[in-house]
């Protein structure tokens, strides 16, 4: 133990805290500390699509638009654009044109790609590099060409853009462009210079203006302009990383982003640590001066008009296990944290009235809780092609409605989510245009409005519907066989048993036997693809805050089995589909609301989704953190955050004083333990031979 103690002493040096995982040089500097649990797979804006990746890419890359940080409902505002482009219909509505004007004078982060000499590096020099930033750095002004280059990259045969299929349906000429590139791209080792190939639907107007031509009307296109898929990529970056030896060193555009954003990624070890450093060339975007009611009281407007970012460096550490992650947050070594499910009770107290608050331990540490309803829905889906529960017959509809009443989602949220969820009344997530709240928003099939709240209908009504469906007491009225249904789900291990038991109990209320087919994610996807599931549990996280992004999940043309679309229920309803086609291209208006109301009514009545819920995120932040506000649509939030480093240092010192008496006690115990051994040895040595 002594050597270990000495080692610990050496490691800690003269510091007042010994368990600080960060270098002593970090102390007193403006650094934000956070963690990532899942390793990012792609940081190329054309490929990156997950939240784990967006938390890095969205600090570096700047698409033309962004979401207002404080306002709700979500509102698009310019980022590098001068204004939010207005769609202009041409040729009688055959095409829509978006003209995007970029602010002049925006400069890229310092990067070696902008130094011409770095484009012809000897192999030995590349092999010696520890980081691309070891090379001489340069910059240049952002131009419209960079945005055009990125749009062309969506179609590159060497890249996998998840939105290529969707964009090829809308951006004029993108599909042809992809096919031309595919034929041209025969020399795999060489750089594929996309500037030499013309894309019909995207044109440069001047150095800071470009135009995108979209087929027909597609109002949701503006939302895509707020995603990194449409962020600028300088051709020099592709050219630089294409050099021999770069890929072998993991120096690729997929891992080393190059952008104009508030931060630049200077350290990239997805296995251990990523580091974002303030971009010295950042133009100094102003903190918003307007927000929601209540934002001013919460201090969210205190920095209004000030130049961002407020933090110089962001250190993001890989934490694979929730226990060390949570403890490091409590010790003050992470500035904010989600609440792991196994520590929920330690952090949050829910009163009998359902009021949520922090525990005394959290309050004493000055930790603050922020909650937000995710723009996500998790639902129990029905395969519309299934002979027992699917289809539009009155019999199956009543069966689904009966089940929808019987499944007590309120109880599910209470038991399994610690109350962190809202029961869905329709397919739309809260905060999305079209969703009605209160009495008007209640699903009349499953709930009724009583005493100012939505109450689940009594189980007797479900039993009556079940009998009308031809299954009195859960048995087929004709043959007398018990009704057995099958639920496909992705299991996570033995811990799922209580959840599965709960599901069986819900169906047992109607005397329906439920067989749960627990499988892994791949097999589950395979079943969905083949349409061999009966009931299943799945979810959807919104790409953008528009009802189209939820209702398309039930559009017949999107059937997973027929067209590999996102309609995993394979639901088809001619009226719903026709309304969807009308609604999807409309601006938010009373007329659109009316159509959505009708679509929601159809879905409630048909019940292709037998209820579901919207998760509620609980986030914790230390007292030294400022300007934090949850944003489900964007992850470019770091530039808004503020850290009080003096307060953090003081609280860290206070809560991490080394406790030395156990080590001393252990040494004493070891010495005490050695005494009998020594005495026994002495006794044996003095003993006469036997």
């Amino acid at each position, binding site marked *: 133990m002594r050597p270990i103690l000495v080692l610990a002493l050496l490691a800690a040096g003269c510091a007042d805290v010994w368990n600080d995982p960060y270098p002593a040089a970090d102390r007193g500097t403006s650094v934000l500390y956070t963690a990532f649990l899942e390793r990012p797979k792609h940081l190329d804006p054309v490929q990156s699509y997950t939240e784990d990746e967006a938390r890095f890419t969205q600090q570096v890359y700047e698409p033309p638009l962004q979401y207002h940080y404080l306002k709700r409902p979500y509102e698009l505002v310019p980022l590098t654009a001068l204004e939010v482009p207005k769609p202009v219909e041409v040729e009688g509505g055959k095409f829509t044109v978006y003209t995007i004007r970029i602010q002049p004078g925006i400069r890229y982060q310092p990067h070696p790609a902008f130094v011409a000499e770095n484009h012809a590096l000897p192999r030995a020099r590349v092999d010696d590099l520890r980081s691309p930033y070891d090379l001489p750095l340069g910059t240049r002004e952002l131009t419209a060409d960079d945005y055009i280059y990125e749009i062309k990259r969506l179609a590159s045969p060497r890249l*996998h853009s*998840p939105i290529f*299929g969707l964009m090829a349906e809308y951006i004029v000429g993108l599909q042809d462009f992809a096919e031309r590139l595919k034929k041209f791209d025969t020399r795999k080792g060489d750089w594929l210079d996309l500037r030499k190939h013309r894309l019909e639907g995207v044109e440069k107007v001047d150095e800071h203006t470009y135009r995108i031509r979209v087929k027909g009307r597609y109002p949701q296109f503006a939302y895509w302009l707020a995603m990194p898929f449409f962020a600028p990529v300088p051709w020099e970056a592709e050219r630089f990383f294409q050099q021999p030896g770069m890929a072998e060193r*993991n120096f690729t555009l997929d891992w080393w982003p190059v952008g104009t954003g508030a931060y630049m990624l200077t350290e990239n070890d997805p296995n251990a640590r990523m580091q974002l450093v303030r971009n010295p060339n950042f133009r100094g975007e102003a903190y918003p001066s307007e927000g929601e009611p209540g934002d001013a009281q919460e201090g969210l407007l205190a920095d209004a008009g000030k130049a961002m970012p407020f933090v110089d460096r962001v250190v993001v550490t890989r934490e694979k*296990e929730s226990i060390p992650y949570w403890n490091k947050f409590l*010790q003050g070594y992470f500035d904010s944290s989600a609440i792991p499910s196994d520590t929920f009770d330690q952090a949050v107290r829910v009163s009998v009235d359902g009021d949520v608050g922090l525990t005394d331990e959290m309050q004493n540490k000055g930790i603050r809780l922020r909650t937000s309803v995710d723009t996500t829905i998790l639902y129990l889906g029905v395969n519309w092609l299934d002979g027992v529960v699917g289809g539009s017959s009155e019999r199956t509809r009543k069966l689904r409605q009966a089940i929808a009443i019987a499944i007590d989602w309120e109880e599910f949220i209470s038991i399994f989510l610690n109350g962190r969820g809202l029961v869905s009344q329709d397919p739309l997530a809260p905060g999305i245009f079209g969703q009605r709240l209160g009495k008007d928003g209640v699903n009349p099939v499953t709930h009724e409005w009583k005493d100012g709240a939505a109450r689940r209908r009594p189980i007797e009504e479900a039993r009556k519907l079940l009998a009308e469906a031809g299954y009195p007491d859960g048995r087929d009225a004709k043959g007398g066989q018990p009704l057995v249904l099958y639920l496909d789900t992705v299991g996570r291990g033995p811990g799922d048993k209580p959840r599965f038991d709960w599901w069986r109990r819900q169906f047992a209320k109607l005397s329906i036997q439920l067989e749960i087919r627990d499988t892994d994610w791949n097999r589950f*996807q395979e079943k969905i693809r083949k349409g061999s599931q009966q009931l299943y549990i799945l979810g959807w996280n919104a790409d953008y805050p528009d009802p189209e992004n939820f209702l398309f999940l039930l559009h017949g043309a999107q059937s997973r089995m027929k067209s590999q679309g*996102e309609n995993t229920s394979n639901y088809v309803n001619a009226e719903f589909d026709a309304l969807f086609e009308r609604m999807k291209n409309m601006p938010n208006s009373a007329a659109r609301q009316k159509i959505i109301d009708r679509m929601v009514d159809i879905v409630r009545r048909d019940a292709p989704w037998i209820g579901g819920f919207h998760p509620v995120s609980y986030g914790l932040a230390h007292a030294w953190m400022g300007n934090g506000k949850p944003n489900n649509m964007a992850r470019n939030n770091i530039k808004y955050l503020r850290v009080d480093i003096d307060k953090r240092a003081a609280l860290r010192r206070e809560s991490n*004083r080394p*406790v030395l008496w156990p080590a001393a006690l252990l040494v004493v115990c070891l010495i005490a333990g050695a005494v009998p051994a020594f005495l026994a040895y002495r006794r044996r040595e003095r003993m006469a031979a036997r």
Partner: protein
Amino acid sequence: MIAYIIRRTLYAIPILIGINLITFALFFLVNTPDDMARMQLGQKRVTPEAMQKWKAERGYDKPLLWNDAAQGAAKASNTIFFEKSVRLFAFDFGRAEDNRDIANEIRTRMWPSLALAIPVFLVGLALNITFALGMAFFRATYLDLWGVVLCVAMMSISSLFYIIGGQYLISKLWHLVPISGYAGGLDAAKFVVLPVLVGVVSGIGAGSRWYRTLFLEEMGKDYVRTARAKGLAEPVVMFRHVLQNALIPVLTGVVVVIPLLFMGSLIAESFFGIPGLGSYTIDAIQAQDFAVVRAMVFIGSVLYIVGLLLTDVSYTLVDPRVRLN
């Protein structure tokens, strides 16, 4: 001896082919190329065309083991198994499914694994031998009895308990070292103290008990009785005679493990946030990254074979009676 080493090296080739085949069969029994494509391309807006493109780029659009459509030798060679396996024997591991170079990852991650594994190995070995010698020295006394009880108790506890308990006590309650994390160079010391301590303590029970058995067996031999009869002090008997002779089985058991230290620890690296090869393997299994899984299994197999060979060679060094023919 050189002929023996060459012969053993040649024997290793069919063994490695067999291991590669088993790994391949087990992996593709659970995962199809479609599953892999879906996992890598994400869960949203994945089209069949994108999946086909992904598979074609990586050669997963071919038959697994036998290509009926091909002619002659290409029936066997124009398959996923052949194309993915043959390069391994040249130690060309290729790229992971996330496009990162596997050889570069291994070179980088090897050092954190060694920074943890070598101290655990050396300190653990020294401590286990010392503790076992002590128990053997005090054999048939209460010290020996309670030592064995302690060993049995310690080896009955899951290693996960040691990790969580160590993190809770030493880092959370006493604030002596960081609970997890890693840094390069000398800064690594403060991060590996706790995992090394946990690794050593969790291994004491099984290690000491095993070495105690070896020492006791040695102590019952005639030459030890002769040494005592000549009037040598017990410490001299223990350290000069018993320890030296018992080191032969100890050494042979230890040498085989040495090459495998490179592979790291699967659980400890995850819990302590050490970016080593154990953690790399776990990540690859979870991400269904066949390229990495295959490379790690191959390297593990090669290292194990090397370990066995070194063990054989070490026999000749510590016991002159042994000849490798």
